[in-house]
């Protein structure tokens, strides 16, 4: 035995290890395959040995060979053997091999379940780790189901190394076994607040991945993520969260409002480009989700665009690329802001980097206007000429077409220009987008009636030139254009200048080299053309010429009859017979042209692509009832027949025609005729004699010699698109002049009339609307069935693997949702104490009391968390306005609890905290017992915090908590305070307002106005306008004058109230200000609508410009000592309120914070948005209060004290 061992280890010395294998392969470059097959033979020998080290070495080499592309699935069983080795060294090799080559179809994979379970519960964290890593690569549905519970237990492992891996792998488990999501979710959520950053990051990772697919289920986590975002310093986590918010905001616009401020702060503060970029991205997502055009949002847009411009201008190509990528997102909703950077984007078109050029192209799509379309397309055309490589050139081509055809050719003013662009594009060799160009040609020719004549002349030139026929080798190549050209020339043959020549061109032998479907169109349209020529000749009485044309047809058509393409052959032989028949009739001098053209009479109208789908189900037709009761003989047969039947029925419903009766048809026909008669561009069906062709009788005598041109000709007679640019400019100039002239004339007339009135003459600036199209653009809209259904739903893909994960996560767990637990598993495998309270398994506890308590506590926490989720609405509804001002405090109760529970150690949570506390209050009522416990706890906390406060006054919490914490006391109730005061009121509407300032904006405040509809009318078209003063001005949307009002971005149904925000700019803040204003609106009720107005005076007090800012007592003392401050004081008598409440009032209404309080004396501090320091010393006597103030501006101080006097006088 011992001898065998020694022998084994000596043998092993001469086995190849991985390094030897690699070296060997490198030394056998010329016969690599042979060498490797030799190695594989050796490996097979090694795998047969008992020694696990030898096996592991062999598997290690196999892993390498797998990487080179060799199939090693035959060794799957050996890999499992190595996985189950007891030594970590070997186990790791086994799991690595498994992770590389095991997959869903590996049949031995089910043998691993128990081994993996054993490894997961191994005492060595690295055994567990290696098993988790391996499993993450090859987890199957079976493995996921069997191991989900074990992995979930590991999520609470004592080692963070295991926790993070367990958390991360849960995502894979969810994907394979969706039932595990709900039971595991509470614990996953818990891990978001894990003390270890790695675990936290993993949890964020998993939830973000889940939320990306089904965002709406994760909205309730928003407050938690918000908190993480404000306190996390890990950029990786921040990026993930911010990306997640980007996915959530479209579902909840209020969330977006809340996000704007912290995100803007991050944009300003972060130095990490990756974070900055993601912030900008999410801000964009937020702005897209907020529909209202509030002025302070345009500031955010500007910020984003600005930052992106910096990225695009950066020399780092990566930043440039991403900048363009983000820009294209803004473009969708705020094209104007992007259009300002047209120069930059056009510049990027010249970049050497193709990725960047492609991105810039994407942007161009949204930047075109009527004014610049031609210029941009011209630029693109030069790029087409220069472009190397067909992919980029094809991309350019599709972009040009996209740009021009977007929103129903909205930006095209001159269709002749567009047709010539399309014709120019046909000169591209080797493109794969011939069909695109063809489709455009057809579309334009059919829908823009005015252009048909021009289009036909161009198309006939294309047919004539023959260079396209030569390039017919490539499928989908440029020859596809001929499809369109032939069809257009045939269908609109009445516009042809030289129909005979075109007919000849279409009958050339070379045409037979074209793809079948194009030939078919040729054949069909040759007849149309023939019919129209015939008609012409007959009407002109040239029977001989007519016969000659027929002769040409009879001679040439047989070449198509011989075609290998069935479609071509069938059409050609059919038509050949027809033409022969015509020939016979012509010989008898019977006029045939009329009858022949009747074959092709009638107008073609475009039909909307969805028209068929939108046909509504006629009344009285129930698609679910049986037409014939299905026979119910044997069950199996029955089933079969059912499915068949149902399928058929579905088909029927899809293809059903709209049921229109005769009268309706007649009415429509009449209407169409009427419309056509009124349309000057519609060519009436009565044949118009075109005498021009009379004097060209000898054409058909000229022998047609096919010239084979290998060099594509420059098509003669085709105009280049460039000339249109010039023409267009001239035309526009002309238009402008005419307009000016008209205006002038009008003005002169006015002047003559009024004599004195003289207005400033406006400069001829050209706006979008001024540009009139060159032709009467008559885009025929696509036809839809009458009373089509408006729904536009796209059905979700039923095969989406993420669909199974779309489950409601807030619903409490049912008993049936437990994860399957291994029955025979030993209890002692549980190493972590938390194991027992797997939240989903509501076990009847047989544990000692201690555990039970712990369990209950946990449960409570969970409840609290759940509550938090449900109260997302509340969290969102108390959204503090973007300015960092204190939120309105609705009740004393809340005030009290806030003061007590505001945790000293969680500064960052100041905003999220409030709603939670509210929840606790709400929770208190129904649940008596736990609440008492909580109350006690709370009091304790309060006591502690009070004790601390006495020693160290300055509130470290941010401003919002400030006034509240400072002022409130439990002993005496304070009357409810609201910072909103009445602005104006009438029978229809009540307006209350509040002004918020932010330290970040030194000359700007936001006025939030709550509009409450007090009437039974529907209020709409609300518009707010104020008379600006020199000092204070309302911010209006770009381009509007100072006399314009700002629209309120909502309407008010009866009894509803909503809040609108308006931004004002202020120069000086030392004086209070009043602005007169008017709210105008339309009140609509059953009787009708009336236009109403409500005047108001908006009062900007000096206190409104103060922002609650905490200040430490030492800093406060220094400030007072500096001597830069002027001083003033007031005294108010007859005060009955307690000092505590008095301070609370000052804090609340005047935005101060308490620095220090000793008995009946307190020092307070605040700061204005323009940086003035304001210090107060408040002293309370028997029935009086004196306030001494110091401030860096004496006027401001005087005014503030006056305002304070008014407040205090009410106490």
């Amino acid at each position, binding site marked *: 035995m011992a001898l065998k061992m020694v022998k084994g280890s000596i043998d092993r010395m001469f086995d190849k*290890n991985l390094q030897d294998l690699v070296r060997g392969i490198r030394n056998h470059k010329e016969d690599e395959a042979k060498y490797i097959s030799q190695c594989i033979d050796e490996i097979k020998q090694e795998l047969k040995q008992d020694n696990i080290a030898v096996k592991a070495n062999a598997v290690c080499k196999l892993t390498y060979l797998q*990487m080179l592309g060799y199939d090693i699935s035959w060794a799957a069983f050996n890999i499992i053997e190595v996985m189950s080795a007891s030594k970590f*060294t070997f186990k790791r090799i086994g799991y690595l091999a498994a992770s590389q080559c095991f997959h869903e179809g590996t049949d031995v994979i089910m043998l691993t379940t128990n081994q993996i379970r054993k490894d997961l519960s191994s005492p060595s964290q690295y055994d567990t780790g290696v098993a988790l890593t391996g499993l993450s690569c090859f987890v199957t549905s079976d493995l996921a189901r069997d191991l989900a519970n074990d992995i979930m237990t590991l999520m609470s492992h004592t080692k963070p190394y295991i926790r993070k891996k367990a958390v991360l792998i849960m995502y894979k488990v969810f994907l394979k076994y969706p039932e595990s999501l709900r039971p595991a979710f509470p614990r996953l959520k818990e891990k978001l607040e894990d003390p270890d950053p790695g675990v936290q990051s993993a949890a964020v990772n998993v939830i973000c991945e889940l939320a990306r697919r089904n965002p709406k289920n994760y909205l309730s986590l928003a407050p938690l993520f918000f908190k993480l975002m404000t306190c996390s310093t890990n950029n990786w986590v921040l990026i993930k969260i911010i990306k997640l918010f980007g996915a959530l905001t479209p579902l909840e616009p209020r969330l977006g409002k809340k996000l704007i401020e912290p995100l803007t702060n991050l944009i300003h503060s972060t130095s990490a480009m990756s974070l900055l970029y993601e912030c900008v991205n999410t801000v964009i997502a937020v702005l897209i989700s907020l529909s209202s055009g509030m002025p302070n949002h345009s500031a955010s847009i500007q910020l984003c665009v600005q930052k992106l411009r910096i990225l695009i201008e950066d020399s780092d190509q990566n930043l440039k690329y991403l900048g363009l990528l983000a820009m294209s997102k803004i473009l969708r909703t705020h094209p104007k802001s992007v259009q300002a950077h047209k120069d930059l984007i056009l510049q990027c078109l010249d970049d050497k980097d193709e990725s960047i050029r492609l991105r810039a192209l994407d942007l161009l799509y949204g930047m075109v206007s009527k004014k610049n379309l031609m210029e941009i397309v011209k630029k693109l055309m030069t790029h087409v000429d220069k472009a190397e490589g067909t992919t980029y050139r094809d991309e350019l081509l599709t972009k040009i077409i996209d740009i021009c055809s977007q929103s129903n050719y909205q930006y095209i003013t001159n269709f002749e220009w567009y047709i010539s662009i399309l014709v120019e594009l046909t000169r591209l060799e080797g493109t794969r987008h011939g069909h695109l160009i063809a489709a455009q040609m057809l579309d334009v020719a059919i829908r823009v009636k005015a252009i048909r004549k021009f289009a036909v002349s161009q198309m006939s030139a294309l047919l004539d030139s023959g260079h396209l026929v030569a390039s017919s080798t490539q499928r989908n190549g440029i020859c596809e254009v001929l499809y369109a050209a032939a069809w257009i020339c045939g269908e609109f043959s009445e516009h042809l200048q030289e129909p005979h020549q075109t007919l000849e061109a279409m009958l050339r032998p070379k045409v037979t080299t074209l793809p079948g479907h194009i030939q078919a169109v040729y054949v069909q349209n040759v007849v149309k053309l023939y019919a129209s020529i015939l008609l012409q000749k007959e009407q002109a009485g040239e029977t001989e010429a007519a016969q000659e044309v027929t002769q040409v047809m009879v001679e040439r058509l047989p070449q198509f009859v011989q075609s290998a393409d069935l479609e071509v052959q069938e059409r050609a032989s059919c038509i050949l017979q027809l033409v022969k028949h015509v020939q016979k009739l012509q010989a008898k001098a019977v006029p045939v042209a009329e009858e022949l053209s009747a074959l092709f009479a009638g107008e073609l109208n475009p039909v909307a692509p969805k028209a068929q789908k939108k046909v509504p189900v006629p009344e009285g037709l129930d698609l679910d009832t049986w037409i014939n009761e299905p026979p119910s003989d044997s069950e199996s047969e029955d089933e079969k027949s059912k499915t068949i039947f149902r399928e058929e029925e579905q088909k029927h419903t899809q293809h059903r025609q709209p049921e229109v009766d005769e009268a309706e048809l007649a009415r429509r026909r009449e209407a169409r005729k009427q419309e056509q008669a009124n349309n000057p561009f519609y060519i009436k069906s009565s044949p118009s004699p075109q005498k021009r062709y009379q004097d060209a009788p000898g054409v058909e005598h000229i022998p047609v010699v096919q010239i084979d041109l290998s060099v594509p000709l420059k098509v003669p007679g085709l105009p280049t698109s460039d000339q249109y640019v010039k023409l267009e400019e001239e035309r526009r100039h002309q238009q402008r002049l005419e307009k000016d002239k008209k205006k002038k004339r009008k003005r002169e007339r006015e002047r003559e009339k009024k004599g004195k009135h003289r207005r400033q003459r406006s400069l001829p600036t050209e706006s979008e609307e001024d540009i009139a199209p060159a032709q009467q653009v008559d885009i025929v809209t696509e036809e839809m069935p009458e009373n089509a259904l408006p729904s536009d739903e796209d059905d979700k893909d039923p095969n989406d693997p993420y669909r199974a994960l779309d489950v409601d996560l807030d619903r409490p767990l049912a008993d049936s949702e437990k994860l399957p637990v291994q029955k025979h598993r030993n209890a002692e495998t549980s190493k972590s104490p938390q194991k027992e309270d797997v939240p989903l398994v509501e076990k009847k506890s047989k544990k000692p009391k201690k555990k039970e308590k712990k369990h209950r506590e946990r449960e409570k926490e969970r409840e609290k968390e759940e509550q938090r989720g449900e109260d997302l609405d509340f969290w969102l509804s108390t959204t503090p306005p973007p300015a960092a001002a204190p939120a309105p405090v609705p009740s004393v109760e809340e005030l009290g609890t806030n003061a007590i529970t505001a945790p000293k150690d969680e500064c960052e949570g100041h905003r999220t905290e409030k709603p939670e506390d509210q929840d606790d209050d709400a929770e208190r009522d129904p649940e008596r017992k736990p609440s008492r416990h909580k109350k006690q706890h709370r009091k304790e906390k309060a006591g502690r915090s009070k004790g601390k406060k006495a020693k160290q006054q300055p509130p470290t919490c941010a401003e919002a908590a400030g006034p509240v914490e400072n002022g409130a006391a439990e002993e005496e109730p304070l009357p409810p305070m609201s910072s909103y005061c009445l602005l104006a009121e009438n029978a229809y509407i009540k307006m209350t307002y509040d002004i918020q300032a932010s330290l970040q904006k030194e000359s700007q405040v936001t006025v939030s106005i709550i509009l409450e509809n007090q009437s039974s009318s529907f209020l709409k078209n609300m518009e707010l306008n104020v008379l600006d003063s020199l000092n204070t001005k309302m911010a209006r949307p770009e381009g509007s004058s100072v006399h314009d009002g700002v629209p309120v971005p909502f309407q008010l149904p009866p009894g509803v109230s909503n809040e609108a925000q308006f931004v004002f700019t202020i120069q000086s803040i030392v004086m209070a200000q009043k602005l007169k204003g008017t709210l105008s609106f339309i009140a609509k009720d059953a009787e009708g609508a009336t236009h109403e107005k409500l005047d108001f005076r908006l009062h900007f007090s000096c206190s409104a410009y103060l922002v609650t800012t905490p200040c430490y007592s030492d800093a406060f003392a220094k400030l007072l000592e500096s001597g830069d401050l002027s001083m003033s004081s007031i005294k108010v008598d007859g005060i009955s309120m307690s000092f505590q409440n008095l301070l609370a009032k000052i804090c609340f209404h005047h935005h101060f914070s308490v620095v220090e309080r000793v008995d009946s004396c307190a020092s307070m501090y605040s700061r204005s948005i323009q940086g003035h320091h304001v210090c107060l010393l408040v002293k309370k006597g028997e029935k009086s209060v004196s306030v001494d103030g110091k401030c860096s501006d004496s006027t401001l101080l005087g005014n503030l004290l006056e305002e304070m006097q008014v407040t205090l006088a009410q106490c």
Partner: protein
Amino acid sequence: MPEEIQQQIVRETFHLVLKRDDNICNFLEGGSLIGGSDYKLIYRHYATLYFVFCVDSSESELGILDLIQVFVETLDKCFENVCELDLIFHMDKVHYILQEVVMGGMVLETNMNEIVAQIEAQNRLEKSEGGLSAAPARAVSAVKNINLPEIPRNINLGDLNIKVPNLSQFV
């Protein structure tokens, strides 16, 4: 994923990346090869080595570039001045390191110190078990290493797939 497709992806990715200049951006938009438009190739180029990650839209592009840097620096620490040959001859170790950064296609750890600490702890554990090749075998290996081949040809390493279960690499 069958080996042939893996190889094809690696080969095509390599050709795509190789023909890109150094002064153009490090992102390649997804083709049908790597799973469609939601996916991107993000790569970094170090001397003769390319590190290529394939990611979907839930990852931050710049974040991944940083992650590649973290991975490379980790390799550098673990191999003490990493060079191509280290990666070629110790592909298994490269995998172990990668597995501490990315697990089953998801980013596991971004803190380099943490990654290095875990790798070192595992190496110590391996050593205490006697390693794959015990002392005598190591001696033989040392002898074999004496005649190392001359400077290798261009060698490229691609870590494909962040989202697809199997990690494929090639030399």
